[in-house]
């Protein structure tokens, strides 16, 4: 079994919400429901202000709290990919998944039934997800968790390589 997931780079995200719309269009979800959401937080006072944009969808958690919370066993975790999906036929819209999810991913859709990111179910693994395909700055990256962890390390390493006054010196072996 493998676990697929998303890597998100807040430094690259410009808060444009193209991922939200891409998700809606590809997955033909109704417009009042957003499987992917961009949140923006601003702090500080003029002119010292900091802000951050975060694009969030279902994390397809390894140990999904929504799955445990669902009294109808409507939520399953795919053995092969780690996708967390909901069977809407079984869902009764009790919203316990919504209470359990730390990220607010479950959305109440048509007929009050839960729906959320399916990790673009019909896209074969290896192809970018719809949000990722569209993201202008490529702040969203999908893939196997191990690969994403490496990708993240590589990014940090790259940063140090270009830092003229690094606070850390990386040791290395050999030449």
């Amino acid at each position, binding site marked *: 079994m493998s676990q697929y997931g998303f890597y998100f780079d807040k430094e690259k995200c410009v808060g444009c919400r*193209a991922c939200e719309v891409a998700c809606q269009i590809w997955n033909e979800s109704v417009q009042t429901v957003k499987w992917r959401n961009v949140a923006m937080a601003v702090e500080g006072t003029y002119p010292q202000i900091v802000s951050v944009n975060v694009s969030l969808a279902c994390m397809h958690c390894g140990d999904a709290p929504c799955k445990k919370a669902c009294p109808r066993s409507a939520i399953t975790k795919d053995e092969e990919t780690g996708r967390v999906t909901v069977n809407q036929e079984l869902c009764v819209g009790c919203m316990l998944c919504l209470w359990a999810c730390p990220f607010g991913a479950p959305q109440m859709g048509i007929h009050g039934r839960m729906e959320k990111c399916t990790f673009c179910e019909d896209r074969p693994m290896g192809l970018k997800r719809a949000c990722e395909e*569209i993201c202008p700055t490529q702040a969203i990256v999908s893939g196997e968790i191990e690969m994403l962890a490496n990708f993240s390390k590589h990014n940090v390493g790259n940063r140090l390589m270009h830092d003229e006054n690094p606070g850390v010196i990386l040791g290395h072996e050999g030449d």
Partner: protein
Amino acid sequence: MSQTNTREIINDIRGTKAVPGVCIVCPWHCPTEVFVRDDKVVWVRGNENAPNATTRCVKGVSSIHLSRDPDRLLHPMKKDKNGNFKAISWDDAFSYIAEKLQEIKEKHGPEAVAYLWHLDSNEMFSQQLFSQLYGTPNWSGHGAACDQSRRLAGIITYGHPLPTKDYENSRFIMLWGEDPLGPNQSLHENRELVEALKRNAKLVVVDPYRSRTAEKAHVWLPINPGTDGALALAMAYRIVESGKYDADFCENYIYGFEVFAEHLRSNGYTPQWAEGITGIKAETIIELADEFAETKPAIMDGLKGIVNYSNGFQSLRAIFTLNAITANIDGPGCLILKEAGPLAPPLLIPEEDVAIPERPIISAEMGYPLAPDIPSQLFPKAVLEGDPYPLKALFFHIVNPAMSDPNTALFKKMMAALDLSVTIDVYMSETAQLSDIVLPEASMFERAEVRESLWSGPQVIMAQPAIACLGDSKPLYEIMKGLAEKMGYGKYFEWNTWQDWAKVATANLPVSFEELKEKGVWHGELRYHKYLEEGFMTSTGRIEIYSEVLPEYGYDPMPTFDESGRAKPDQEYPFQLINGKLQYHCGTHTQNNPYLMAIEGENWAQLSTQDARRLGIEDGDRIELTSPVGRVEISVRIVEGLKDGIVRVVHGHGFGRTMGSIARGKGTHVNPIFDSQVNHICGGIGYNECKVSVRKVG
């Protein structure tokens, strides 16, 4: 994570056919792929053969609605005696227009007709018909409302109208009144910008508003509105005085460096002088000037926040000069003097048949001989007062000056006085409603376009029709062909399908028509430092800090700082009004899009926290903005990232119109408070030359 040719995978999943296209929502024209099933667009994304790859901005991905919007124009229409639109046939529409045009030509000459357009390369057909055959000199883009100052500053300084950016290799990037990451620009440039920041390139943003790009900047300089020129000149002063300029480059490739150095000294353009004007500390100016001069390669550029001021042209000249004296031009990591691909005109009109206009373009007689596009805000003067000469007919193609130009009341008066007014558009725009004839154009999903892209090297896009035209709508090239036939110029438009003319247009490209059609883009080699062999396209072949052209027309040959045209706040109107664009909308034609309207359904005026508190205004309150020429009521958004004493508005909303069921009644049309200001030299619209008072309503 690299992916190549994923088009077929998507076609397999969705049972679609992918058709290369181009996005014309904004002027950056990113190449696209349109996935179609049963004549319906089901998915859109960027063209993976192009530098933007599969990415789209939020407006681009939302544009899919345009292919299925029931509110679109579907039939040609003509106003009856009571002012109501009635559907007519294309044949009747063409006959009526051709007849009127003949009458006007006989009575007033062809120059009494002006054709205003926006950003579509199919405009070459209207150019041939109106300019080359009918013979009016007044065929013009709508740049007066846009980048006019930058274009002219580029032409005068570098001999190039549209320098692009090589962020990828840049180490110091300073953007003035430019927000690429917000309202968006070329997608590949934006991606390269954030990637450059990852590699520790430094980003400085000069803007009184903390824009999306300013959010990512290492240094945000909230400057006093309209004083960018002073800051740029003070930086130049420091670089020249400290000897940090590139002496070799200045000697060999710049015209007028020595006189410019003297000009800086004699005018006293010192950092201390600029501090008092810009509100930016002299020590900060010195520090930034030093860092910029010492960090190579670097980019200095500016856009909307500069061009909307009366002195925008000279400010941009000063900004462009900074690139020049540090040798940051046309190299990796610099502004690039973009090369175009070898596109040919789709049809050639024999030289002896090309009409030679008897009168010059109207902007020259309006007093703006160097304006790249006609200052369209002066059309009412020409129509209503015959100044400088009478205009009797106006054509508007995908431009909507009733919404985008200042002084809406005057515009309406002008429209009523015309002998003929024709709007070619996808929607029943505000301008269309004021016209006699409205012609429905096919959307970008339904027509072909062959054009140069805005990539830094030569790149040609070949967009193709993905679905059938909605209703009776037609692509512009077919509209021009139909009209040409009625006007007696049919023999010049002898092609049957778009492929016929596209083959002619792309004949010189080193790629087969079939391959271009398949990929949708072709790109050549991105060459750097072209000036080493070819020089610059200015009159002296060098970068002209001292312009040989400007003094011929009585303008200052060197970048200066001039506040004489500024509308400065006073006791009666204590706030400076500045303009911005929304990240989620473009101009006046995305307000009927349900995806975008769900994100941002109205426009608003922004006030700083301090100012709002002082005036007892809370977020979401309604306020009245009053300028010397008009007043509007609008909702308030209070923001931390805005300098005090400023009201920032975004335009484009506020349609009371029949354009679309989603757009109707949402937001506020702010343009009635703008005066018809004309920017010095370039003729652009001075939207930001506006002072207002603020009053809470209710």
